[in-house]
């Protein structure tokens, strides 16, 4: 399996391919649509992430020192963004997740081409991912 950094680089490469923001958005929308279905039982308030304009639920599970994330949102662009985060973080151990330096967001131009409220929501998502990882690391 690829490292977190490798996955980020891959995403950056993919986005470099796009000519303008419409293509980037279209890609995010498509990603959002193809995100696997979320278990409806996990759509609970305690899984909600604060600071997003739309509802974003994030759930995690831990097995064999590996964290698996799954997520959903009622807005499709948010869903696309979170699917990128899941692709980057899911399947790694807590230590790697905690130590990861997330630079792909800026590099793919999400900061300037996604509205910054979404960018803030995105930060909340990353924070929540790291909180889960920290919890699992402590539990070990």
């Amino acid at each position: 399996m690829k490292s977190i950094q490798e996955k980020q680089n891959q995403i950056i490469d993919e986005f470099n391919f796009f000519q303008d923001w419409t293509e980037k958005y279209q890609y995010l929308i498509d990603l959002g649509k193809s995100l696997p279905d979320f278990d409806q039982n996990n759509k609970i308030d305690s899984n909600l992430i604060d600071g997003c304009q739309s509802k974003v639920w994030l759930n995690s599970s831990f097995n064999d020192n590996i964290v698996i994330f799954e997520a959903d949102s009622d807005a499709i662009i948010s869903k696309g963004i979170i699917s990128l985060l899941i692709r980057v973080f899911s399947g790694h151990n807590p230590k790697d997740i905690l130590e990861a330096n997330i630079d792909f967001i800026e590099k793919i131009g999400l900061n300037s081409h996604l509205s910054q409220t979404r960018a803030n929501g995105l930060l909340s998502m990353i924070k929540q991912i790291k909180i889960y990882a920290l919890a699992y690391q402590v539990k070990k």
Partner: protein
Amino acid sequence: MLDVYKIREDFPILSKKINDTDLIYFDNAATSQTPNQVIDVISDYYKNYNSNIHRGLHSLSVDATNKYEETRLKVKEHFGITHNHEIIFTSGTTHGINIISSGLEKMISSKDELIISEMEHHSNIVPWQMLCEKTGAKLKVIPINENGTLKIDEYKSLLTPNVKFVFISHVSNTLGILNPIKEIIDLAHKNKSKVLIDGAQGAAHFKINLSELDVDFYVASAHKLCGPTGVGFLYGKSDLLNSLPPYQGGGEMISNVTFDKTEYADLPHKFEAGTPNIAGVIAFGAALDYMNSIGFENIDAYEKTLLDYATENLRKIDNIKIYGDVDEKISVISFNIADHHPSDIGSILDQFGIAVRTGQHCTQPIMDHFKIPGTVRASFSFYNTKSEIDLFIDAVKKAVKMLG
């Protein structure tokens, strides 16, 4: 009617670029833009006569005091108010409502009832909930029809003898619906109930005469009237204002302070404790002048053409639902398309340089009523154009296409 291209030159922000395209500002219900005529008054204040007001003997203070009080005269004139001292400067609509809700604490008991409506802004809900919690009074809610209008028959039956107060918005910020406030006030008065009208949205679109309306309290915010942030006013009939306790303690609101006894100053000072937003109040006066120089009849008529044009063209989009699509409304359109999340549409519109608001617009009960997470809200002002609406309609269509 009005020369929109000439008017646009007064608003520097309208020539701004977003994402390399021209900004289209359709978030006027949240806050209006500010013309040079108002911005310059603020600069002029700080450059020429910035000073604390009242009780000052030196020229700057006198100039600042006079200009500050001139705005009171302008508000009086513009809103058809009988006495200067019935106008209290506030930091905005929310502040104005809270002056009343906190002032009523001692006058409301557990037997009393208060009426609001389902379409109120949170600022006209939460203070009354807080008041009811403190006093045990009962809050009754006028429901809305499927088209968003108030159920006036229900209002009539809610108007029982125990109803002390009715709190209703002049215009709904989410639906744009203009409420029949004259009828609401008259019915309330027949029932010996007092009425507060939340004019945050109403004051910006047409000239109103508060004496003729015979309303007991009226509140509004300058920032929705081409004025600055942090300023608003509360109008109240003087006997009512006199009967309320002061809201805040501080400088200016007292006439005599000893440790034994403190006497409160007369209206309006009783409610204007502390150094006010002097520059803001003065600029608010300039904003009223500006809008009056264009003319509220012109503003109203022009905005109506924008509303009609936009509504007509939006209606042609498949699966669009416009909330509050009635005749008596101002230039605010809330909508959803198919089951796309409003924030998805809003984000894409932002990429096109189009500023609309998405979400609940501080009216969660309306969202609960329609069982939706929010709406896309486009609100037009007299400085917007039909060609902006064309671009907006176009962008909405593209967004829908992208969202698939």
